[in-house]
């Protein structure tokens, strides 16, 4: 789950992590009012979409750039008018772009130095790890590759939490001193609280900056949340913006289906995440391109299969479907009946290959064969993958 920049600012404010002044606006009037409130400061207006490259993007109405410096409340209103309810296209949105529903008016701060600061859940140590670097403002992957000595890591004890000496250590690694070090310590301590209390999987500030007027501020942030913990994070869930997500993935999540859209033309429907990944792999191995990852879970009820069919068929790139079910406990015949019902309901305009294995498989195969639908049966995963690749051509 992703959140908007203005929502990240809300979280920072709630946990007292200092960031530049800012206010979100849904109308030109609100944008002007916000600019007025911050009068005296240098201000920017930023389109709020879940995509990078906003500054260099363009609106479909011809207006250039999703981030602008503004000189006055009037100009804030003017630019907001050109951004709101318009579609912004950036390198990350694809040609269809994203509709801008909100803009943020924010203080444009002068920068003395840029740093990198992140907290991640580390798999290797099973603990939170703090990553800090004096090389802020650039891709941390590049820093890790080119100048690994500039990256400092501190593992935090999973039960004791962040200790004062750890903060001092990181502060020293970043060569911070005096009041700046004090402010940094407070910021990091609060950031850690945010990380733990909101069940984050990742929290990255890049850059963290110091300013000529002696402040330490989180300038840009990226959040990752643990999906498993969302049940106890109603405030975070409320920040979800379904308009920003792939509509196919939103529909899938309503039926408890794990779906991820890809660019290929062979859709697959599988039970189990590992088998679903392996099915995508075997399609590719035999020369096809998978259109999606889709795990219907251990159950695969008729309703789920029907919903999955509709989502798959809603993707106009899809030219064929491979169903791969290992019905260990489930009755393969029940699955076969579910597939037939779903196929009948959706019309089945494209080739369908079904590979069933497991409990009561003979009966399941017989049911599919008797259906008089255009369903091709397969014996193994390899057989199924080869058949669907051939059918799609």
């Amino acid at each position, binding site marked *: 789950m992703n959140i908007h920049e203005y929502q990240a600012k809300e979280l920072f404010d709630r946990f007292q992590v200092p960031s530049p002044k800012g206010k979100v606006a849904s109308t030109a009037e609100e944008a002007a009012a916000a600019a007025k409130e911050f009068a005296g400061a240098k201000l920017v207006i930023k389109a709020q979409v879940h995509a990078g490259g906003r500054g260099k993007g363009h609106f479909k109405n011809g207006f250039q750039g999703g981030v602008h410096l503004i000189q006055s409340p009037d100009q804030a209103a003017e630019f907001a008018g050109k951004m709101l309810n318009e579609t912004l296209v950036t390198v990350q949105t694809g040609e269809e772009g994203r509709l801008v529903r909100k803009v943020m008016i924010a203080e444009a701060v002068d920068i003395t130095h840029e740093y990198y600061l992140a907290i991640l859940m580390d798999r290797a140590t099973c603990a939170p790890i703090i990553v800090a670097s004096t090389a802020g403002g650039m891709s941390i992957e590049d820093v890790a590759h080119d100048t690994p000595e500039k990256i400092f890591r501190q593992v935090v004890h999973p039960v004791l939490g962040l200790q004062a000496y750890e903060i001092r250590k990181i502060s020293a690694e970043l060569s911070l001193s005096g009041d700046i070090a004090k402010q940094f310590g407070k910021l990091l301590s609060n950031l850690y609280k945010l990380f733990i209390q909101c069940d984050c999987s990742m929290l990255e500030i890049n850059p963290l900056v110091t300013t000529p007027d002696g402040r330490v501020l989180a300038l840009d942030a990226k959040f990752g949340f643990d999906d498993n913990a969302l049940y106890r994070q109603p405030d975070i869930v409320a920040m979800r913006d379904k308009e920003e997500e792939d509509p196919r993935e939103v529909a899938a999540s309503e039926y408890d289906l794990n779906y991820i859209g890809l660019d290929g033309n062979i859709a697959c429907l599988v039970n189990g995440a590992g088998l679903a990944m392996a099915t995508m792999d075997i399609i590719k191995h035999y020369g096809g391109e998978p259109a999606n990852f889709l795990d219907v879970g251990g159950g695969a009820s008729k309703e789920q299969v029907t919903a999955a069919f509709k989502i798959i068929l809603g993707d106009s790139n899809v030219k064929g479907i491979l169903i791969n079910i290992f019905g*260990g406990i489930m009755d393969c015949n029940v699955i076969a009946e579910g597939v037939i019902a779903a196929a009948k309901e959706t019309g089945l305009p494209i080739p369908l290959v079904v590979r069933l294995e497991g409990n009561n498989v003979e009966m399941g195969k017989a049911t599919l064969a008797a259906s008089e639908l255009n369903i091709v049966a397969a014996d193994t995963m390899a057989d199924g993958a080869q058949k669907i690749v051939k059918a799609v051509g």
Partner: protein
Amino acid sequence: MAILIDENTKVLVQGITGAFGARHAQLSLDYGTKLVAGVTPGKGGQKFADVVPIFDTVSQAVNETGATASAIFVPPPFAADAILEAMDAGVELIVCITEGIPVMDMMRVKHALKGSKSRLVGPNCPGLVTPGPGEKSHGGCRIGIAPGYIHKRGNVGVVSRSGTLTYEAVFQLTQMGYGQSTCVGIGGDPINGTNHLDVLEMFNNDPETEAIIMIGEIGGNAEAEAARWAKDHCKKPIAGFIAGATAPPGRRMGHAGAIVGGEEDTAAAKKKILAECGIVVAETPSEMASALMKAWGK
């Protein structure tokens, strides 16, 4: 012999009265597993399937029945507590089937397990099977949700992060006439109790296990670590498979732990490391058993 469990292992089920737990507890009973107790707070004194006593706490269940292994089927918000309760009761093997436990909870549980005498397998796993000698491997020990009947008693150890891929490998083996010593599903979460390396070590020390299939996927470095260890220490032939070659980076592929974070945890990188360490890597998931035959010289 087998590893971790055998036909004499006394098993209890935490969450035995929930629909999911009850269904699989019954299947384990049908398989011939020594299921000696169930635990559901508030339902102590009742019986499951007329034969298995239910207790309010794990401690009571262990004291009364001598159970040494537990299968956990409780919902995610309560699963961490269930694991800690089993640990507190001295359960030697805790198998957590539950999917969807918050990572922060598992982080604390993992820490609590250090220095305890309990081993955790999972969470988000299919559990373990040591096949029995009977028809369709009846009479074995089944803890979790795997289909017992596809197994066959034998000498191949299977370890995997994925449930259905494990079944696929077991099915291929059984069809080719090769049985299994023990099959261990270690689960698809980023923080788990037992990893590939732990299981490889146990298989290596188990006289009944002659060859090993190790199934992994994108995300993390557990498979690479296990492979590097095996190169120097494992006396037995290993075949491997890594799922997720076509997974886009940065996306969670169903399993919470199945996410490509960098260059090192892609399927291609892992396959390369496995091959360099002398493991025969199956090109497709259809060839897991045949890859093992190659490694094993059969």
